[in-house]
């Protein structure tokens, strides 16, 4: 098997899987009906994209591996999602700030991958970016609405944007696999990714009347399989059925 390609596809799939799970926890618990439905829809789009990455990864792996094996039958240290995505839901500003940083990054990443030399990767990216365009619009509009809203909403949005800033750096730390994929024309250019991310987020934060957090360190580890405590709890929930009834199918 092409180990580098497999590892790369896992990196691409794991972040949206874990964020999608976090968002799915809000189904039925959103602040109002419209945002509840929106967050559940975003979770659904992400899961659809994850299935495409994992189906491809399963084919690359061979030996009868399936997308379900990849999603449900790995241990914590084998997941490669960025630690941003596993952070818990606190209030709505929290959910929006996490989503805003993720969407800004996800959009730029996918737009580069539409040009990937790997046709399957470019097809999945071209499909996904149509959906992620809506996600990014949703989260950035809420950043503006809350930032430029009441005194209370402004404080909460500002706090959330400042809190999640410490998870941004990991988004731009390139693993060896990502370096290799970029060199071969398959992956993304992280310098471009960082420039596009900064320019988009700064513009939205300015419009929202929010301060741009200045931070020169980052939480990291997810992309090497070293996670925060939260991931274990997520997997306990996510993997319950497969652990309790191994091999079960719908």
């Amino acid at each position, binding site marked *: 098997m092409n180990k580098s390609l497999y590892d790369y596809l896992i990196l691409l799939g794991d972040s949206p899987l874990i964020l999608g799970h976090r968002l799915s926890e809000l189904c039925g618990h959103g602040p109002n009906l419209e945002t509840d439905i*929106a967050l559940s829809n975003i979770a*659904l789009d992400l*899961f659809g994209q994850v299935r*495409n990455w994992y189906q491809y990864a399963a084919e690359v792996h061979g030996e009868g591996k399936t997308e379900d094996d990849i999603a449900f039958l790995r241990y914590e240290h084998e997941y490669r999602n960025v630690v941003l995505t596993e952070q818990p839901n606190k209030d709505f500003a929290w959910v929006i700030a996490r989503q805003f940083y993720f969407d800004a990054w996800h959009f730029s990443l996918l737009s580069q991958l539409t040009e990937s030399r790997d046709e399957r990767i470019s097809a*999945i990216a071209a*499909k*996904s970016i149509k959906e992620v365009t*809506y996600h990014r619009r*949703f989260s950035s509009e809420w950043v503006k609405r809350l930032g430029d809203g009441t005194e209370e909403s402004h404080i909460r949005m500002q706090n959330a944007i400042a809190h999640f800033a410490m998870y941004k750096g990991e988004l731009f730390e390139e693993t060896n696999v990502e370096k290799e994929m970029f060199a071969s024309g398959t992956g993304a250019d992280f310098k471009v990714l960082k420039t596009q991310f900064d320019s988009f987020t700064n513009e939205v934060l300015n419009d929202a009347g929010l301060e741009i957090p200045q931070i020169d360190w980052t939480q990291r580890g997810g992309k090497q399989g070293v996670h925060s405590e939260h991931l274990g709890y997520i997997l306990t929930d996510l993997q319950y059925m497969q652990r309790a009834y191994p091999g079960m199918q719908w």
Partner: protein
Amino acid sequence: MVESSMPESEHKVREILATVKDPEIPVLTVEDMGIIRGIELDGQKVRVKITPTYSGCPAMDEIAADIRKALLAEGYEPEVVSVLSPPWSSLWISEEGRRKMEVYGIAAPLEEVADKRALMGEKRVVKCTHCGSMNTRLVSPFGSTACKALFQCNDCLEPFDYFKCI
């Protein structure tokens, strides 16, 4: 779409596919939705390529199963495969499909530029499916299914679905 230039055998398969409905919008067939991306025939063996509207669309598995069932019932040996490229566009919904959608109560997707304005809440361009008023507003860009946005009419005050452009 059933075209006169098609070989007889493919024509027959197209007719069968025209009976398979989208489970989420049961007035539309899979042909109306523009999700059939190719048909390969080899005797009784038929390979149908379909493409998802949205990556996470939960109706896709059911649609694939329904296509298989409909072809099996007519004596074919069907295989349904999913293709992603080129990605599905709401522009692929047929005229007939758009008409049926409107009658069913879902506003059909506008062309892309007008759609962006509508979803950004800049211009009132989506027509109410209940009273025909153009005085409508976007309630949420995410609606009851992945492919729909939620609108409300400012005149008759009824909510309605709008099929999003992607």
